[in-house]
């Protein structure tokens, strides 16, 4: 029973990471109908920025915030400089562009920060830990929850958040009330980048930082987004926690860690086949 509880809680801790990435993916998907395959690499790069700052002597939380700012600005820049060139391109073309960005960011990270696997510090004191969760896992859940709540409040209660929601749902009507839709899109990218950075910085102490650290996490984030219903940001968040738990329980009880990844994905696919719009998604009825 104890192991079960531990696996469950640990799964929730990991789930916070997947929830954040899933949320970032859905935010961009809602506004653009594209999956940002480079989201993981953006996050990883920002984590490296914070590590570099920490290694230079900057205190952890200052480095954390600076890395977030970097993630935000670079997200905006990516959208304004590269992505907007492909506004009207076919879907597959845009997929290749995202993959190209993935290669570029990954390669730059390897060149600037080396491919060596490095340890990443955790700011949470060991005393915070309990019988079921390590200190970092508890801190991780806290930080990701705070992030999700802040983002929710931003979208729900601020005029800018409202404008961003409007721009994602109905760009043309948004223009008619004076919203600069292009910049809303760029802000969305910035925000998604920052959320991703939080996920990577929280995950790094556990998975260790190296240029390919986010590949598996991105896949789980993707799965979380689909599980929750690709158009539902909060579904993605809940989906993330569900995926985290499934991953851990599957790894502990069904197959070893070898096939953990595959089994978790198979379960998710099974869910999708039975409920193609995701657990919380709405099936859109289209007129013929």
């Amino acid at each position: 029973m104890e192991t079960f509880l531990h696996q469950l809680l640990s799964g929730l801790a990991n789930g916070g990471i997947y929830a954040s990435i899933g949320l970032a993916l859905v935010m961009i998907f809602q506004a653009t109908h594209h999956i940002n395959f480079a989201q993981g690499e953006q996050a990883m790069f920002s984590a490296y920025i914070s590590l570099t700052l920490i290694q230079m002597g900057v205190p952890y939380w200052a480095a954390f915030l600076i890395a977030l700012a970097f993630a935000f600005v670079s997200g905006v820049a990516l959208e304004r400089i590269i992505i907007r060139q492909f506004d009207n391109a076919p879907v597959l073309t845009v997929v290749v562009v995202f993959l190209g960005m993935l290669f570029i960011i990954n390669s730059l990270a390897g060149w600037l920060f080396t491919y060596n696997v490095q340890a990443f510090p955790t700011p949470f004191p060991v005393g915070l830990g309990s019988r079921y969760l390590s200190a970092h896992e508890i801190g991780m859940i806290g930080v990701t929850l705070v992030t999700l709540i802040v983002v929710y409040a931003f979208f729900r209660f601020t005029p800018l958040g409202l404008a961003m929601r409007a721009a994602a749902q109905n760009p043309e009507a948004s223009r008619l009330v004076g919203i600069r839709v292009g910049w809303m899109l760029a802000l969305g990218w910035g925000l998604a980048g920052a959320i991703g950075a939080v996920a990577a910085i929280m995950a790094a102490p556990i998975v260790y930082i190296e240029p390919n650290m986010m590949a598996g996490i991105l896949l789980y984030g993707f799965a979380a987004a689909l599980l929750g219903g690709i158009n539902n940001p909060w579904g993605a968040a809940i989906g993330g926690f569900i995926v985290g738990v499934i991953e851990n329980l599957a790894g502990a009880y069904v197959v070893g860690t070898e096939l953990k990844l595959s089994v978790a994905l198979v379960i998710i696919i099974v869910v999708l086949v039975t409920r193609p719009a995701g657990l919380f998604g709405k099936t859109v009825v289209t007129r013929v």
Partner: protein
Amino acid sequence: MPVVKAQAARPPWQLPAVIVLLVVAAIVPFVVSSFHLLQLTMVVIYAIALLGLNILTGYNGQISLGHGAFYAVGAYTMAILIERAGMPYWAIVPIAGAVCFVVGFLFGLPALRLEGHYLALSTFALAVATPQLLKFHSLEKWTGGVQGTFVPGFDAPFGLPLHWDQWLYLFSLFIAVVLFLVAWNLLRGSTGIAITAIRDHPIAARTMGINIAMYKSLTFGVSAMYTGIAGALGALVAQFVSPDSFTIFLSLSLLVGAVIGGVASIFGAIFGALFIEFVPNFADQISKAVTWAVYGSFMIAFMYLMPNGIAGALKLLMEKLRRRG
């Protein structure tokens, strides 16, 4: 229910161009070095794999991020049957095709219900799972586990005065020509119309009596078959198969090649194969430190200049010339 066969206007230069291409391709093994010949053999093989992917993604609109899995199945089929069953390589090629057809068809059945991004994720998951499954220890005595298996070489048949690599090139070329002809015939007939109708307007297609489920699964099967045959040939070239040869990166490369070549196009497969075989080397020459960043930049640049792939850009060019002429 019979569908009217469309006679698409065929540009007059197409047949001579193909013949010239074939002649050049046939002469190649006797003029280039062994290393370059191996590269060109891989181009032929990738072209077959990309044609398979094109049929599914370009013509039928089902996106696949996991075709590397079918490539791997074909490769391992070749490796296992050559070693364990002692079968000759040329007999294994159609078997690999058949095996992959079945696997693709079976995958296609549940995948039917998934559209767009859901299908992308499922195929992505398949691709990620493939190396893990290949490493799985209960399959080890068949697959050779993590270390992989060697695939022995062979001599040219009938005592022909050809080196192994020359013969392998010609053998692959022959198979490629056959497969391209089959695809071309399939796609311009009623099957092709049905397949593209499903891509463009599935609801209308269904009301026309096209059995969407059957067509989609069959298309998946055919697509997997092509890529599997390519994988089997690839195993002969590499003379080695191991799980790490078939990572997600292979699947992504195949997709990139298909899109950059031009998806709904048979020639696109050839352009795409040239891209994924040569541009990485070219990028490596430009910079060893950030090779993949250079490659990624090429990808983005190509997509910016030619959003419909190389084949799409050529088609636009031809149309412009024709209008002016």
